[in-house]
């Protein structure tokens, strides 16, 4: 796609009286391998490219997309959008306005150390098949009824121009491996785990992830959880949450409620609104002084990496919660205008056919300086929840639930034995107010975050260190 053609589209729309115009070419190319029980099911390639055009005409915001990339087709899309906007303007009570930001001209690219083509397809299939063997050979007392593995190489390219002078070119390769496994014991039932590895980069990630070792250790512990696991204590106890659990918690109850479009109600009929009100920003206490949650698209090699957002705003780290205080929402230029501030570069679209929305990128709980052993050393009786399967949260991001998978009893400062399916069900303030300790072991996990209609899934990382909650009552699954 030529920059000239996108510039032409923007200029043409301006000639029709459009106040703001943005043209984004986006290519998303996927290569997928699927295996079941270590045997190949299929290989697939998906190539998805086209142009998304966002216009503000007569106070109406429009978004149009096409994968017919000729000049005439693009001009036709603009004309149709303007015509439909004109017919709708009487229903617009709140004009669309953008903050007065300085847009960027720049580019970014993740360059893999090992290109996706540096390993033969058959070698990739062999490696994934070996993961199944690792799982099956790691268990002693249980059976493995099924394993399922998805391997996804994703290359995303963006070329964006807008009528305020913005220009961005970006290229990010990403790798994702998803493993689903079921362990079954005739008397104890079954346990199920979905393990995901994901980051931006190339095949060097496979070595860095140390796949076989990580999977082997986890499967061995899951088997013990299934066979030996007991119910969690009934009385309130100190609960330590591992980085994976902390990651999903900050994504759901810090990241989502701090999306400014949700705060303003723009997603109310879809993903919902937020317990956060505009007046909370900068003063409302949601947690203890240990609670600092950061959102940072610029972490190198991260799954949610970008340097400029889809409105050509330079990305930077944002403090969502700072020392327990609600601090800075995620903004695009539209919400920044309403809040009387500047965009902090949070606008992102899943593909060419999707409207750029305020999205998280990489969200994490800021680590402290303790060792894990120090975090648990004075716990007489407690529970350590290392991983989870089931989770959900209500539509204002207040009432949340996480069900532990690999979980341990803590007795006199040491991990002693396994706990089965402990349920953490707390409000957002209830949870963050109970944080009394944070260790230094920051880890990230990949996810696909959903939002919008038509629904958009975008790659994100979430993570944190181990954190300790004081006196929590745990539930059990029924």
């Amino acid at each position, binding site marked *: 796609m030529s920059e000239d053609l996108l510039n032409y589209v923007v200029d043409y729309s301006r000639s029709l009286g459009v106040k703001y115009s943005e043209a984004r070419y986006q290519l998303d190319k996927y290569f997928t391998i699927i295996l079941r029980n270590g045997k190949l099911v299929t*290989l697939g390639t998906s*190539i998805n490219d086209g142009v998304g055009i966002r216009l503000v005409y007569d106070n109406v915001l429009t978004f149009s*997309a096409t994968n017919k990339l000729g000049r005439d087709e693009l001009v036709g899309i603009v004309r149709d959008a303007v015509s439909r906007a004109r017919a709708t303007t009487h229903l*617009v009570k709140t004009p669309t306005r953008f903050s007065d930001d300085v847009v960027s001209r720049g580019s970014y690219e993740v360059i893999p150390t090992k290109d996706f083509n540096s390993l033969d397809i058959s070698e990739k299939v062999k490696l994934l098949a070996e993961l199944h063997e690792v799982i099956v050979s790691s268990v002693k007392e249980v059976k493995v009824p099924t394993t399922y593995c998805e391997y996804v190489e994703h290359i995303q390219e963006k070329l964006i121009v807008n009528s305020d002078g913005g220009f961005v070119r970006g290229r990010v390769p990403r790798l994702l491996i998803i493993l689903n496994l079921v362990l079954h014991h005739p008397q104890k039932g079954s346990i199920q785990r979905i393990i995901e590895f994901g980051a931006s980069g190339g095949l060097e990630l496979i070595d860095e992830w140390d796949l076989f070792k990580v999977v082997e250790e986890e499967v061995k512990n899951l088997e013990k959880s299934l066979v030996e696991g007991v119910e969690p204590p009934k009385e309130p106890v100190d609960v330590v949450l591992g980085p994976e659990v902390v990651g999903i918690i900050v994504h759901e109850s810090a990241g989502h409620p701090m999306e400014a479009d949700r705060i303003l109600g723009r997603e109310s009929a879809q993903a919902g609104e937020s317990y956060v009100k505009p007046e909370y920003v900068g003063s409302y206490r949601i947690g203890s002084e240990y609670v600092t949650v950061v959102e940072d698209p610029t972490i190198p090699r991260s799954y949610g990496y970008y340097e400029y957002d889809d409105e050509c705003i330079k990305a930077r780290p944002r403090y969502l919660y700072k020392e327990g205080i609600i601090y800075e929402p995620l903004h695009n230029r539209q919400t920044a205008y309403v809040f009387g501030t500047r965009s902090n570069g949070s606008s992102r679209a899943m593909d060419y*056919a999707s409207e750029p929305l305020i999205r998280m990128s990489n969200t994490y709980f800021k680590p402290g300086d303790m060792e894990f052993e120090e975090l648990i050393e004075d716990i007489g009786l407690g529970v350590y929840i290392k991983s989870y399967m*089931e989770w959900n949260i209500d539509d204002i991001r207040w*009432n949340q639930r996480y069900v532990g998978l690999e979980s341990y009893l803590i007795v006199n400062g040491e991990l002693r034995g396994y706990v089965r399916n402990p*349920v953490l069900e707390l409000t957002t303030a209830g949870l963050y107010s109970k944080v009394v300790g944070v260790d230094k072991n920051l880890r990230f996990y990949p996810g696909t975050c959903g939002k919008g209609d*038509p629904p958009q899934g975008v790659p994100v990382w979430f993570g944190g260190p181990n954190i300790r909650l004081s006196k929590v009552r745990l539930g059990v699954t029924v």
Partner: protein
Amino acid sequence: MSSELLDTAGTLLRKLRSSYDELAVMINGIDSVMVKIVNNNVALKYSRKSYNVGLYLVKGRKVLILESSTSDLNQLSRAADDISKYVHIIEESELYAPLPEPRQVKPLGNLVDGNVVKYMGEPAKLCEVLINSAVNEGVERVSGILSLGVRSKALVSSNGFEGFEVGSEVSTYLRVFKGDYSGHWAYGSRFLDLKSIEDVGRTAAQYASYAKGFIDIPPGRYDVILSPLVVGNLMELVVSMTSAFNVLAGFSMFISKSLGDVVATDKLTLADVPRDIELSGSTSFDDEGVETYNKELISRGSLKTLLHNSKTARKFNTVSTGNAGWITPRPWNIAVAPGDSDVDEMVREVRNGLLISNNWYTRLQNYVEGAFSTVSRDAVLVIRDGEVVGNARRVRIADNLSRLLSNIWLVGRKCYLIKWWEVEVPSKVPYILVKDLNITKPFE
């Protein structure tokens, strides 16, 4: 349009035919308009015109799939050549089965509603109807989506199948707010019905207007009336578990079940209904060119069939149910057979219970055992001794899908056409009363 898409698909088939043992070309076209309403205001006009091409390629029982948004035949050929390099270095597919021999497919008739096409050019008029239908009931804020579109698909395969279909679709949902209370409703069909559009706003507003004051209810077991929105969400999950591929991949509680096993009360009959043209997933042929037919998946409580394509059918030693997916069988439309009750009777039946009008975020701890939870949103009505006595704030159903199916007590006689963010497969579903569902709330 039919000849254009079929010609393109045919040309591509001929271009690639000599390189593969079997192949199929599917072209999907979409022309759609969507209006997003936020706080009584049009926040976005969205439109999309695009084509997507899918290639199913087999050589030596090795299965490759290529999907592309490009309509450039040369680019597609190059992409197919690229992917064909893998054929020599990979193993045979575990699930290979030959493409089924083509048979006569009975068409579904006219699936295009001229009114949908008309309003695609002037969706603002429908938006006004939608917004006013709620605002006239006295609500304060209205948000939602109105979506109109025409989808087309052309399929040709190397064993001679050739099929084309085009159909319109309309879907809309509205969430409305009145003070601390909110309500939500949805509608989805191939055909535009102004009364149904108005009913979306009216019903959502009625739920927002059940403002009898909030009651703090303790966690525990309750008899729960699930609205069609909730039934649609949960039955979509149950039906996804009947996809034979999901059974094989460990994403199904039917992994340890056999056909004929009792999996629900005899009040429940759950079906895939591709031949119900009211619903926008209706189609006469699947992705392998197999004629579709309506089928009960759970018949009066017994597991009757899984959803199959030719691959999973071979693995399970049966025949395709006309639900391909080249890899994963999928439902086209979902229907729960109507019962003999109505929502007022259900309320009268409940001694200590709830009516949950809407839900979201359904997640599982364990697919093979069915342990799940889902969170309510919008109106939750508290029922005592057969009367609505107040509202509950957000609660969670945390139970087991098998138990839920086994505790279905009453099924409504009226079914609603539902499609929205949390019910993606077009569904025709009633209110259902479930006994003894486990309800949880945050400890603090």
